[in-house]
């Protein structure tokens, strides 16, 4: 029984197509440095692209070293031309593992946050 019902519903959905996905919360799309990467040279900035436009006033990135000390310049900003891109400058990073914590509010008011790490040096 269930498969006939689901088959029928599926047919309905096929008719309208599935279209693209509109991301209603801002999730991390990709980052530079990429999540979990190991870099030979220290990156000058962290860039994170989200799946939706974000609110500059309530979005930020904090970067900490393995001892928990802040290594970002404390002034995260949203790119002027690409409102999905959040950027924060970094101090000159010695080799080690770094933790990136991001928290954003999407323009439709939903809050999301997350963490990732990257390494500098061998």
């Amino acid at each position: 029984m269930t498969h006939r019902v689901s088959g029928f519903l599926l047919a309905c959905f096929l008719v309208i197509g599935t279209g693209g996905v509109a991301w209603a919360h801002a999730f991390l799309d990709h980052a530079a440095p990429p999540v979990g990467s190991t870099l030979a040279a220290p990156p000058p900035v962290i860039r994170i692209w989200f799946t939706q436009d974000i609110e500059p006033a309530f979005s930020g990135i904090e970067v900490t070293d393995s001892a928990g000390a802040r290594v970002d310049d404390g002034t995260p900003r949203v790119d002027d031309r690409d409102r999905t891109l959040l950027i924060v400058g970094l101090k000159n990073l010695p080799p080690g593992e770094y933790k990136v914590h991001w928290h954003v509010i999407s323009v439709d008011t939903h809050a999301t946050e997350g963490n990732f790490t990257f390494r500098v040096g061998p």
Partner: protein
Amino acid sequence: MTETLLVAARVVHFAASIGVAGTLCFTVLIARPAALEAAYRRWLWACLALAVISGFGWFLALAAGMSGRSLSASFDPHLLSTVLLQTRFGRLFSLRFAFAALAALALLLPARVGRISAFACAAALLGSLAWAGHGADDQGANGVFHLAADIVHLLTAGAWIGGLAPLAWLFQRAIAAGDGEWVEIARRAAQRFSALGIVAVGLLLASGVINASYLVDSLAGLFGTAYGRLLLLKIVLFAALIAVATVNREVLTPRLSAAPRGAKQRASDDALRQLRRNALIEAGLGLGVLGVVAFLGTMVPAAHQQPLWPFPIRFSADVLSVPALRGEVWLALVSASLGVALAGASFVFRKLWGAVVVVWLVIIAFFLPSLNLLTLPAYPTSFFQSPAGFTTRSIARGEQAFAQNCVSCHGAQGKGDGPLAKQLTDAPADLTADHIYAHSDGDLFWWISNGIANTAMPGFSAQLDAETIWNVIDFVHANADGVRAAEGTPARAPDFAIQCPDGTVTALRQLGGRIVHLVFAGPQDDARLAALSRLDLGGDVTTVIAPLGAHEDALRPFCAVAEPGMEQAYALYPPGRGQSLAGDEFLIDGKGWLRGVWLPRAGAGWSDERTLRTDLDEIRANPILASPRPAGHVHQ
């Protein structure tokens, strides 16, 4: 507390905005008996006031939510002005407040002008809610389409649900008056309103389906996530609304008659009472829908969650590509569709109803075995999508877990020829065979986690965490891809991080559209790197070096792989596992397909730059249009 206020304020705000727009719509399109003018006016003012108050509640709850503060700590002028002036919601809030104020002003104007302009302001107040919802996505034509559907949905809901209160009022008044003139007014209003209702149902369905397709994105999302199931609840409430409206239209409205006395009048009075009751029931159902909507808007839409599939089977059109079965399945599909059409027709030719249903059931029963071919066994995780991203790191981690847990049966190459394989009555699956591409990632995830019933395949959920299982699945796919790549089939290139000489960092998948010339450079390859640094392969080619002991000076001009150990994953493709990749070169096209390999030990190849250029031209001339997707990704 903040969350409760948010949902409560949203329900009240939706209902009040719909009340304002719907009541004005009612007076413009349906009826405005002079005796009810004052009552409707009071109702309008009450709704407008509620809309403004609940709007402030919503604003405050959001300010608290955005700043992460408690509600009481959010009464901070600095915070409130930041939200008001610097966020899109704040600007929308100001604009909508202006619409509400204009609507109030318009209500003070003389009758006709005031009514029309108040209606326009109320429509703007309601329609602009679309920007506060999940549809407020800025990105491209898709976003505009979604937004338009959202606006239509809101306005239509306003016209229908918001018109129920003035309609019930009108029925109430007609009952109280108890004369033929009022019955006639009620009859005409009921007729007009049901005509509006039919249009509304059509528009709500169409725009609702469009919205759902953006936010749920799949059947699995509808049945398998909390968001989807709440949406199903909304659909059930909507269906109940349609059922009540149908009774009003088909049964009750025709009974209304202005006949002065007798049985007909009693029937008419009863119908009027039932219409009033039904209008209130509809309004209640409508409020239920709004409650669900207010809650849905604060949840993560289903398209972002792993859906738990609740049924033991899933639909699959794969059988339609099997020539021997194709005809049978199509015949069954066409017959079943004819059956559905017949069942629909039976609503029109009511006398044949019973016979048609019997015929339909016989058709379905006869073709059921054939229709069953369109289904596959399914598991709760069948529609899970891998979060592992097919990166070199995921594949390397998967290979390690595979070596520890899987090789004893499946063999080091995954061909099903491990040392224990001979002791098993059923041979372990050959994980390099074509069937691996027929299973969804979610099916593989279930089998690795829980084993496969009636086979020797055990479950590994106790030994491997979810991430590791996704890694194993990435490895199994890369391993099977590698076998095919050795025969010249393009394979999906595993993703890895890249750092360029200016310090910028990116990843293979982010190079969008560029051809990547990937060179594994050992200590002996300095001369090759020097030659490549002088070579201009074209503006659409990026040379990326994977350093395997190459000297730093030789690497300096190039972008380099920033993912230690990534060669472990690339060794699954030609040259083959266990070989050193030093000196080997790959070409990856703009879509991420692995298109060419040169192994120096196999011949001069790309050391002659003309051969390399010819191969690049070949890639440019014959692009693969499809994007490489995770093998076994379920298309719905």
